[in-house]
């Protein structure tokens, strides 16, 4: 029997958030609200040195003066920042020697998410620094990494153990006053990951952090700092799922990448926070500031697959400061039901012979709004800068919207910039062609969407590509226009 579009649409709409469950782990939670005392208390709790407390307080004072930005093409009820608890940590904090000692409930959570630690340890060779409600509770493969001199730990640990490294780099790419959410994050970040790759070292495995929002009413404020010293290479993965919940959860992370001379950082994200139910209720607010700086001959590559969150506000950027540096941005953003995504990138060309590539694929279905917002800026001294941007949008159904806001600012006559954007739907002829060859409509759509997103999926590390493909299917299969 033919599978009609209506049926497909219906199936998709009724598709519940598959990873929506809630793990009951006793938490040590701060009272709601935000003031200087809370900021100091967070800092104390983390046993931070005085300079760090001061740094946080400075950020808090800046944040108080700032207003929430409104320029993005999204509408939502603004979160009440005084109704959020700014710290929560699983209160059993043993340092595990092996996985057997980990809270079985936690292990079970990961199992249901399909993230089996031991399996990954054996098969994928991925060292996982798990952030569960802001505190890192398990780090694997530390030993292997240690031998190479690679530091991969939670940021609180890094502040204690490697204060001079953190102090030197923290806030250099995303300063406290950068924007409203970055300032908030700087004041109250509870945990996150820190990674340092020494000179000339090629990190032997993909580093990976799994984030989860777990405690009711807990905002997540991760802080990630990746420093790749001269001539080093690292590939970093970040992925997240969250349990379903009625009230909106705020997620305001900051990621800073520093690629020194000749270094390369590859940063991949699969984002699958709870997008809200089909009435558009609930869902995570994802307001993230991600930015990297490239010194001479360095390269930073952002790859993201955005399928979750009720509201996404995210612009992973590259500052191409050094000569011959390279910035890349590959993105797939999928929105369905009432999701809203305003995402894109900024490529700031400052050095000579800098190059950047932007490939952005937006897929919108249901009643969602999907925007690409990007900036390509070529400074007056950035001779021979080269940029290629491509933004393609795929619309499924006539109740969704696709928007493109590319800003291009060139101040150098040797700059070569190309920008292309297209908007289309899945052609009836394409589906007909597949049907004719015995491929049913649902599979045909999966095939077409996969082909549409292939350029980006190809950029993901092997281990992630599978999960990403799965997510795309969950988010989209059947939602046809």
């Amino acid at each position, binding site marked *: 029997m033919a599978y009609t579009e209506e049926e497909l649409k219906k199936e998709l709409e009724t598709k519940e958030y598959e990873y929506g469950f809630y793990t009951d782990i006793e938490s040590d939670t701060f009272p709601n609200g935000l003031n200087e005392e809370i900021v100091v208390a967070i800092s104390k709790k983390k046993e931070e040195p005085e300079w760090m407390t001061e740094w946080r307080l400075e950020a808090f004072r800046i944040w108080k003066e700032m207003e929430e930005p409104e*320029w993005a093409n999204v509408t939502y009820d603004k979160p009440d920042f005084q109704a959020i608890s700014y710290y929560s940590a699983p209160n059993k904090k043993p340092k595990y020697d092996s996985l057997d000692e980990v809270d079985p409930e936690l292990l079970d959570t990961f199992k249901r998410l399909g993230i089996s630690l031991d399996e990954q340890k054996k098969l994928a060779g991925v060292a996982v620094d798990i952030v569960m409600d802001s505190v890192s509770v398990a780090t694997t493969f530390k030993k292997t990494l240690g031998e190479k001199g690679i530091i991969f730990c939670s940021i609180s640990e890094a502040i204690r153990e490697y204060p001079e490294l953190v102090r030197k780099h923290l806030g250099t790419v995303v300063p406290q006053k950068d924007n409203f959410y970055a300032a908030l994050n700087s004041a109250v970040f509870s945990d996150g990951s820190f990674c340092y790759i020494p000179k000339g070292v090629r990190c032997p495995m993909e580093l990976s952090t799994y984030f989860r929002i777990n405690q009711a009413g807990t905002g997540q404020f991760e802080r990630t700092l990746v420093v790749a010293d001269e001539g080093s290479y690292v590939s970093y993965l970040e992925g997240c799922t969250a349990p379903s919940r009625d009230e909106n959860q705020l997620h305001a992370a900051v990621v800073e990448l520093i690629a020194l001379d000749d270094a390369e950082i590859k940063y991949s994200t699969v984002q699958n926070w709870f997008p809200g139910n089909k009435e558009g209720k609930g869902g995570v607010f994802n307001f993230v500031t991600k930015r990297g700086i490239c010194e001479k001959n360095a390269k930073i590559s952002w790859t993201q697959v955005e399928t979750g969150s009720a509201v996404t506000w995210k612009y992973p950027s590259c500052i191409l400061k050094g000569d011959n540096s390279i910035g890349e941005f590959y993105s797939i953003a999928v929105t369905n039901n009432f999701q809203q995504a305003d995402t894109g990138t900024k490529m700031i060309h400052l050095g000579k012979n800098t190059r950047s590539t932007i490939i952005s694929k937006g897929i919108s279905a249901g009643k969602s709004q999907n925007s690409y917002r990007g900036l390509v800026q*070529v400074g*007056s001294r950035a001779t021979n800068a080269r940029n290629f941007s491509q933004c393609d*949008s795929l*619309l*499924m*159904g*006539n*109740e*969704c*919207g*696709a*928007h*493109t*806001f*590319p*800003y*291009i*600012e*060139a*101040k*150098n*006559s*040797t*700059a*070569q*910039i*190309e*920008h*292309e*954007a*297209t*908007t*289309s*739907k899945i052609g009836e002829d394409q589906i007909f062609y597949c049907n004719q060859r015995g491929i049913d409509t649902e599979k045909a759509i999966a095939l077409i969407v996969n082909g549409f997103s292939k350029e980006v999926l190809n950029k993901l590390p092997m281990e992630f590509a599978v999960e990403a493909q799965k997510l795309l299917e969950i988010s989209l299969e059947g939602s046809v*226009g």
Partner: protein
Amino acid sequence: MDLKEKLVSSFLAFENNVDVDNPVHDIRTAAIKNFEAKGFPSKKEEAWKYTSLNSLQKIDFSIFPKMESNLEFKDVKKYFLNEIDTYKIVFVDGVYSSFLSETTHEGVDVCLMSSALNKPTYKAVIDVYFNKIACKDDSLTSLNTAFSKEGAYIYIPKNKIPKKPIEIIHFATGSEAAALLQPRNLIIAEENAELQIIERHQSLTTNEVLTNAVTEIYAAKNAIVDYYKIQNDAHSSSLIDNTYIDQKDASHVKVHTFSFGGKLTRNNLNFYQNGERIESTMKGVTIIEGKQLVDHHTLVHHIEPNCESHQDYKGIYDENATGVFNGKIIVEKLAQKTNAFQQNNNILVSDKASINTKPQLEIFADDVKCSHGCTIGQLDKDALFYLQSRGIPKKEARALLMYAFANNVLESVRIPELKTRINKIIANKLGVNLGFDL
């Protein structure tokens, strides 16, 4: 007193000069209120992010034009498209010059806004069309509406085609140290009507001139409107051009904008497609240098199905010139089968020149073909070498390539004499004799 206060306080005096019982009195009053509330746009507004009006606001513009100045036709002949016969509506310092003009009422109305606003014969048309499509929210459009008094009024009835193209020319003589001109045009093409308009603003001195023009164009079913804007003004003049176009079923409207002169030029070109099978075309060539700034803001609002829009803007920027392009395409949910294309190509000749471009798509319908392309680059070095190796001097070779770059925008100009004229301006601008007759 800053310019805004001056304008607001002059409004009463202006109203006393014109007829207060006039039905447009209410429209003017509402408009000045909106302008008073909003003021001049600042760089904080997204639409004015790259273009600042601050320096213009510091100039003490005189708002009311003096009486007609004496201009000899032989002195200004070169600004007309004198190779062919045209209707002419000419204004000198904002005042209609009957001596230089050639209007008509034979079958079609090619005449003045002031008479259209004041004579009862036109009341029915004014009621239906005046200030209907122009944005009532926009502060600069409101400013123009508040002081709207004079401009071109063109009405082409059903199935009529005027015998010749219409030229609308605004001269500024510099009788004032700094003059603010606010022409207001209304152009209506009824069913199956067809017309061609050439518009030009020309300052004859180095005194400051600021023109804040509003043009409303209504194209009814099957109407064809070709509008050519020649912006080759003195470097002391600034122009803010607000054009609003309302199109009905199967109408074709083409707007060509040639921006070569002026200190600051801002074009707000807005198309609203209120019908099916409509075609809208916007083309532009910008060649500027010095400290010039040209800012193109286009909007195409696709409201109903089966329509097309084409945009093609080319820019060449030398010295310290700044170019801005912001092309916005909105496709409403109902506007299925829309084809919308947008192209913006730029060449930066100097390291001090800059270009800010933002091709923007907002799409709510799924069965559409929309694309935009945008490039910033240089002249092809191989092509330059090829021409030089065949004995063409570098300067000419460059001019030739730049001419080729801009050429496909010129191709759709339907008045051959105008095309030649524009080619001459381009050759002049690039400082070369191309050695063949374009």
